């Protein structure tokens, strides 16, 4: 289509000036809208960058390392699905079979050199790949419930713990009554002398979709085959600073380590958006398979080193729920990964040329 045009006519000067002002206003509005959307104008907003920065100790983060759960050791193994999970989810990982795993035992601390006995929370990262090319990544920890109900609450906890104000923690506990259950576990819960004796809990609720398209809210845990032997923290403190890594490397020589994976299905009305609220014990539990750890590999050259155990990497047939944590964790883990990858030269790799 072509436009018929009338005779030439330059706009009068005043109109041209007005037009330039209009153009400048359009550009300024465009730039401001962009800055607003990017939260550049909202210094109080809780962003993934601010959350990650709050994890760092006063001396600054350990460059090249994960910003939390910084201390860890890699493992490889398999997830052997027994087929029972297929009732809940179409994901291939639940079809009877063996699927390779790259995982990481870790401690909930931003300090990669922390003494093992000084860290209350122990965790495991698991990445299972299936022949259809899909992946399931999950990062679980040993407390039975999470510390806080919301990501903002987690940020508040970090701020309060780091505060020099002696009343900060008290004020935090007052403002976050849900913290009491976790606080009770941290104080009185059992300690063990081995990563292999821990039960690890996913804590966050996810949604499984079965082959009929039915959706169910679930949480999952892995339960150790090894009998947990309680050891007092005072006794653990006498062991070496890396006793957990040394113990697991020794223990694997006696044979593979096993955990049973159990999926708990929520009843209608069970809280899915709050990982501080455990579901009642009578909820349906399905054992979906066995995680077998076959080899322990130090992290510097290990296959887990460059894996981001982002809990939102899920195969088709699994999805996030209204639990706000997986999204917050995903965004914060991404920032942590971006930063540590950029700081790779600060990470003590053992083999020259181990990375590009």
């Amino acid at each position: 289509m072509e436009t018929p045009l009338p005779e030439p006519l330059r706009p009068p000067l005043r109109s041209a000036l007005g037009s330039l002002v209009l153009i400048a206003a359009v550009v300024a509005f465009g730039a401001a809208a962009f800055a607003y959307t990017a939260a550049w104008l909202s210094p109080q907003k809780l962003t993934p960058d601010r959350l990650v920065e709050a994890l760092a100790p006063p001396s600054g983060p350990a460059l090249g390392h994960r910003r939390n759960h910084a201390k860890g050791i890699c493992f490889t193994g398999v997830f052997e699905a027994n087929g029972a999970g297929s009732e809940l989810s179409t994901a291939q990982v639940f079809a009877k079979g063996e699927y390779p795993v790259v995982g990481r035992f870790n401690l909930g601390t931003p300090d990669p050199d922390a003494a093992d006995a000084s860290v209350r929370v122990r965790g495991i990262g698991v990445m299972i790949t299936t022949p259809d090319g899909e992946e399931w990544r999950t990062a679980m920890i040993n407390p039975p419930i999470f510390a806080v109900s919301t990501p903002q609450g987690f940020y508040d906890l970090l701020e309060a713990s780091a505060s020099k104000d002696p009343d900060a923690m008290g004020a935090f506990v007052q403002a976050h009554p849900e913290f009491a259950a976790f606080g009770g576990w941290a104080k009185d819960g059992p300690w063990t002398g081995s990563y292999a004796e821990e039960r690890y809990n996913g804590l966050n609720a996810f949604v499984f979709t079965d082959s009929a398209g039915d959706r169910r809210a679930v949480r999952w845990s892995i339960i150790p085959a090894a009998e947990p032997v309680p050891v007092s923290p005072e006794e653990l403190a006498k062991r070496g600073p890396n006793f957990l890594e040394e113990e697991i490397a020794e223990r694997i020589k006696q044979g593979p380590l096993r955990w049973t994976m159990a999926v708990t299905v929520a009843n209608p009305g069970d809280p899915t958006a709050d990982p501080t609220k455990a579901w009642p014990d009578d909820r349906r539990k399905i054992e979906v398979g066995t995680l077998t750890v076959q080899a322990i590999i130090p992290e510097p050259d290990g296959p887990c080193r460059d894996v981001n155990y982002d809990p939102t990497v899920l195969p088709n047939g699994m999805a996030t729920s209204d639990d706000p944590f997986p999204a917050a964790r995903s965004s914060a883990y991404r920032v942590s990964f971006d930063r540590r990858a950029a700081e790779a030269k600060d990470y003590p790799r053992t083999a020259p040329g181990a990375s590009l």
Partner: protein
Amino acid sequence: MIRVPRFTPLQRALHWIMAVCILTMLFIGVHMVSSINPKYLTLITIHKTLGIVILVLALIRLAVRLRSGAPPLPLDLPEPMKLAAHLSHYALYALMIGLPLIGWAMLSSAGYPIVLWGGIWLPPIAPQSDGLHTVLWQAHVWLALLFYAVILMHVAAALFHALVRRDGVFEAMGPELNHRAEATSPAHQPAE
């Protein structure tokens, strides 16, 4: 009566569809990286999916542009403005095609699966590598900001043609304005 040469209807359709897609993309991009809400996951899925849509549309558009060309610029357009017009078009095409590819490669180099809306999994297009990831990540961020700056300049230039010069350049891609425009033909010259 003088007629202003315009882009073909297909080119105009592609331009305006992509304008909406790209602006949506850039706003989602800067918003999602500052967000920890559950909507972060929805936004990032839209971002990846829309990125692939833009990549495909941009490749189609490039092919159409190479075949159909562009209307000539007005002969009396000052040389610096002609140069800016040509360079900005090269930049826009490079960014439309480059940013989705860089984003895709960036996710690949971090070892993330690339999952689009509807559970579509894309293969990686780069090896996993810290060094490569860092370069691609920085490039994705800074080129996206550059893209938005170029778009703002593009909008400013389009409005300058529409409101100040009234030389038919805006109408070549935009709606037919009802104001009296300066005759430009036969004073147009080929753009490329």
